[in-house]
């Protein structure tokens, strides 16, 4: 099987280790990974802040970059939700404004081919045990767009539970937002930090060493709070845990 990796702008620039982990993981599972050069940002920061018109070129770009692939896999629930849920909306709004059907067609073609990583593993490849090894206590925070936007359900937990050596502990209030929310973190910093701090208090209370998630943007916010507080808890993207093996452990 051949897939295109949509690495996302945040992972590309700040968390390349997550992208590398996705490539290693998928290749270990026998999948051929392409990295289309034309990809960039899905446009979520612009769209969610109210700049729909600035988003449109990025919708076009993203759709064009992945035009040749039946499967597009991304390690971000929120970017996947952006493409699946909001690209069609952006297309319809452009149509209503009398600017043709080009964006709608681009969205219609791309949206059904985009998979968040855990969806791809569980639904398309049909695996929950990916042969990973990670001997640590881990708790999982389901980011909102994965949880409610995509309906990832227990897929990430099932994948984690099958990791050898991993002790998965439940996060109380897991379904509550961590307070990142894109530009919300900057526009409403006090509420954002209060939400993040509450999330980390719950996570620390589980006794876990690692707080794991499926979105590096949420993790950047939580990690920033942890490091400011000098906490021993650390954040990790789920892909990095799934990529770790006994031969190539994660340090």
């Amino acid at each position, binding site marked *: 099987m051949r897939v295109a990796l949509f690495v996302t702008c945040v992972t*590309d620039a700040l968390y390349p280790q997550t992208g590398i982990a996705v490539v290693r993981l998928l290749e270990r599972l026998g999948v051929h990974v392409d*990295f289309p050069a034309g990809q960039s940002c899905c446009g979520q920061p612009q769209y969610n*802040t109210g700049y*729909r018109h600035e988003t449109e070129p990025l919708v076009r770009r993203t759709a064009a970059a992945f035009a040749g692939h039946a499967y597009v896999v991304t390690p971000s629930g929120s970017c996947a939700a952006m493409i699946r849920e909001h690209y069609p909306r952006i297309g319809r709004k452009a149509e209503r404004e009398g600017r043709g059907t080009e964006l709608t067609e681009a969205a219609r073609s791309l949206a059904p081919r985009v998979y968040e990583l855990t969806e791809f593993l569980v639904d398309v490849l049909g695996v929950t045990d990916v042969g990973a090894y990670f001997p640590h206590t881990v708790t999982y925070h389901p980011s909102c767009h994965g949880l409610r936007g995509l309906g990832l359900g227990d897929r990430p937990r099932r994948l984690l539970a099958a990791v050898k050596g991993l002790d998965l502990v439940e996060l109380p209030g897991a379904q509550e937002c961590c307070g990142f929310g894109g530009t919300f973190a900057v526009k409403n*910093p006090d*509420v954002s930090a209060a*939400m993040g701090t509450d999330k980390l208090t719950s996570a620390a209370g589980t006794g876990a060493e690692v707080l794991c998630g499926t979105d590096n943007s949420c993790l950047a916010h939580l990690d920033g709070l942890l490091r400011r507080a000098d906490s021993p808890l650390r954040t990790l993207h789920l892909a990095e845990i799934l990529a770790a093996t006994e031969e190539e452990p994660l340090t």
Partner: protein
Amino acid sequence: MTRTDLGMPAFPDAAREAVRDGVLRANLRHATHTIRDKRARAVAELEDWDRLRAAGKAVKDHTLRHLDRYLLQLEAAVTAAGGTVHWAVDADEANRIVTELVRATGEREVVKVKSMATQEIGLNEALEAAGITAYETDLAELIVQLGHDRPSHILVPAIHRNRAEIRDIFRAEMGRWGRPAPDPLGDDPRELAEAARLHLREKFLRAKVAVCGANFMVAETGTMVVFESEGNGRMCLTLPETLISVVGIEKVVPTFRDLEIFLQTLPRSSTAERMNPYTTMWTGLGPSRGADGDGPSAFHLVLLDNGRTDTLADETGRQALRCIRCSACLNVCPVYERAGGHAYGSVYPGPIGAVLSPQLRGTDSEIDASLPYASTLCGACYDVCPVAIDIPEILVHLRERVAQGGPVTRHGIRVRIRPAHGHTAERAAMRAARLLLDRPGALRAGERLLARARRLAPRRLPGPGAAWTDTRDLPSVPAEPFRDWWTRERGTPQ
């Protein structure tokens, strides 16, 4: 809406104060978590919840699409049953109508059933200016009124107060408004409720005029419906001689049978009860009412627009008019839980307030322009909404209106508004970011520059970025971006 709402600080500033108030945060956290857990259990009891939710949405959408027809049908039915219908285009007109109706009775006091519509128009203040005192009879509204406070929740207006605070308010203020609080008075809920009961009973028995709202109005029969928990509303609806209802035009449903849906979804969503303790329905005056029967001898219905038809003209925003004011979205919202209701600067706080207020009032004021951003778009509000209002979708839609301007309907006329103040720098930044992101070559060069300068990365950012670095560390910049790793390991991307 009310004059006092204008000039409110923008949401982030108001929220900052609330976040730092430990007592307030503890009160809010306790109250919202208790009710949200109870609600989840009450909803889980119904196997057909999803279908009830879809049915409620469908009834509301159908009614909104044919609102003109159903309002005329309602007017005819209310009139035929002996009531009088008044139409109010805005808050001022509604207040004028109610004030004149009260004056015509010769009374200087009215009792009130808890009502969001009368709060929206600032009726109590308008009556006060005309020399008429309005007494709130809902327990939580009474606490707010006696405390010279503002409501902070749709359903539980005094959610921000704990029982010790309530005892202090009762002790200090009840005597000035009527029967004083019993002495001594403890902070046991039963004692507090008894003090309120004694204080209010005096008001019910004396009042000649009552003012209420309605949860629903049935077009085919002209029936008004009020859902409540305490029975204080029913006292107001049955004891006084004149009853005046102020109701938003979106509250109409076509048939009596439609109530079947909302009788199930509203109480479970709001108070987490299978059925609310008191549901009062009345149709005009009816044969048993009037001078010799039960209930008031005069009934007036004031139909309130106040920005609703303008909201109806907006394809995305109009779904906010489906709202049945259950407040489930407030109780589940992590932002509301930290910021509290007052930060929203509106009688409609929480997620629904963040989409309703900027539509009813426009986005001109600082507070209204900030409300669409008072959310992380986490989607919890959409999940719990019993009429499936996609609040995150409306929030993004309104952010666009604030940031980019665009077409809106004001007083029935389609106009194009300019972006709100203070977005010039952000707009330039978004444009610059897009230009960079739309050119992978430039993006790659930027990423490399960032990687090379990573040791120089500041711990604190200037400008808007300071909002991040004041409380959080920045992610450390990697030695090479993913793109470069790929090129090094796998050759040039396709």
